[in-house]
């Protein structure tokens, strides 16, 4: 069932198929100009609850070279399709709760005045900062002649302390290398590869909205959807100003398990005394 988008940061309007569970692992390697290189990683459990609701749990961690390896927190994400049918632009509402430490470095989104210098703090110090954050996004996306065009607007608030709302954005465009499917099942067919580009960054906060003291990235992306329901993604990202990391290398692997909901729901039903269907 795999036909996954290549984006690492940007979301399009497609949700997980109902009853399907997707397990994903992603890595981000960063080489800050000041401070130690880091390898941040996260695991996602993405479940299609209904055709208009996808729910997802993230577990984050990171290794900072010459420092330590840490579990940095979890996120619970929900996406709700707002319109029943396809339209010129398709909106999806994204709501996420995060409980992460200041040492989190996965860069799943860039918001507010996030800058490279934030990542130079030693883990022992950064982990003492605890953040409870609500993050909302309006995801807009469109399919057009084989292309996907997506735009995400982000507003996030750290519930710890009196932090202001912070803002960010992500833009993406992608297209399969071939639009028609082959008559034969194949692994290396062009239609299995989707390539594109994404751009993302911060837009300041409620008190100082704008581009000053913000970081921005441009990242080519490619996904390889294998017939066996595995998807591989690769994305080298380039910082666009002096506040950004110079280079981020991201990759991910995911596997979709269809029919998970029905099988697990049936198991729960039998556990509570129901009959085997």
């Amino acid at each position: 069932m795999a036909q996954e988008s290549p984006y690492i940061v940007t979301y399009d309007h497609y949700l997980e198929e109902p009853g399907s569970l997707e397990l994903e692992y992603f890595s981000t390697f960063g080489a800050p100009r000041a401070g130690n290189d880091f390898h941040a990683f996260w695991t996602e459990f993405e479940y299609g609850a209904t055709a208009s609701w996808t729910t997802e749990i993230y577990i984050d961690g990171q290794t900072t070279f010459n420092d330590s390896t840490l579990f940095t927190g979890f996120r619970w994400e929900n996406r709700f399709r707002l319109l029943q049918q396809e339209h010129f632009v398709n909106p999806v509402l994204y709501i996420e709760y995060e409980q992460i430490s200041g040492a989190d470095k996965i860069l799943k989104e860039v918001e507010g005045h996030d800058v490279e210098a934030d990542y130079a703090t030693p883990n022992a110090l950064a982990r003492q900062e605890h953040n409870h954050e609500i993050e909302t996004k309006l995801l807009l996306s469109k399919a057009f002649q084989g292309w996907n065009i997506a735009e995400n607007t982000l507003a996030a608030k750290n519930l710890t302390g009196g932090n202001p709302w912070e803002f960010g954005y992500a833009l993406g465009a992608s297209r399969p290398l071939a639009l028609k499917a082959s008559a034969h099942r194949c692994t290396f067919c062009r239609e299995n590869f989707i390539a594109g580009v994404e751009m993302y960054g911060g837009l300041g906060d409620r008190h100082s909205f704008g581009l000053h003291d913000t970081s921005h990235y441009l990242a080519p992306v490619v996904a390889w959807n294998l017939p066996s329901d595995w998807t591989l993604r690769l994305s080298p990202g380039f910082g666009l100003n002096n506040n950004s990391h110079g280079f981020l290398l991201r990759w991910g692997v995911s596997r979709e398990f269809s029919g998970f909901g029905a099988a697990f729901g049936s198991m729960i039903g039998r556990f509570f005394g129901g009959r085997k269907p």
Partner: protein
Amino acid sequence: MTRVARRTALAAFVLALTVSLAAQKGMSVSEKDSSVYAPLAKAPAKATARRNPLESDPDAVAAGANLFAQHCAECHGEMAQGGRKGPSLLADPVRQASPGAIFWILTNGVVRRGMPVWSKLPEPQRWQLVAYIKSLSPRSGPASKPQK
């Protein structure tokens, strides 16, 4: 705040997952329930009138069969006979529907009934799926079987 927030989030997640799993278990589509085919009739006239641009493509049915196995068989059954979540595509309403109407359903889904939108498949692939679905016959089965 920390502990309360963590417990509240965990409880909300477990509740949401339980409700959605219960909903999944309850899903079953009977071929006798003709209302499952009602969305076909809701396709706009302009969409219904569209012809399959790949109807003369000799590979369209075979390619559609592979796409069906990857994306559709989970719900509609391997032979399109219907499954727990999706209705039979061998039934008269589907066989009598125009290619344009089936394409419209593929593109827009039937979100309220649990069928996702499939516009993430490029338009030519959706037409290949239409070619395969229109080739299905209740007696002889599909004209082209998906490759394992």
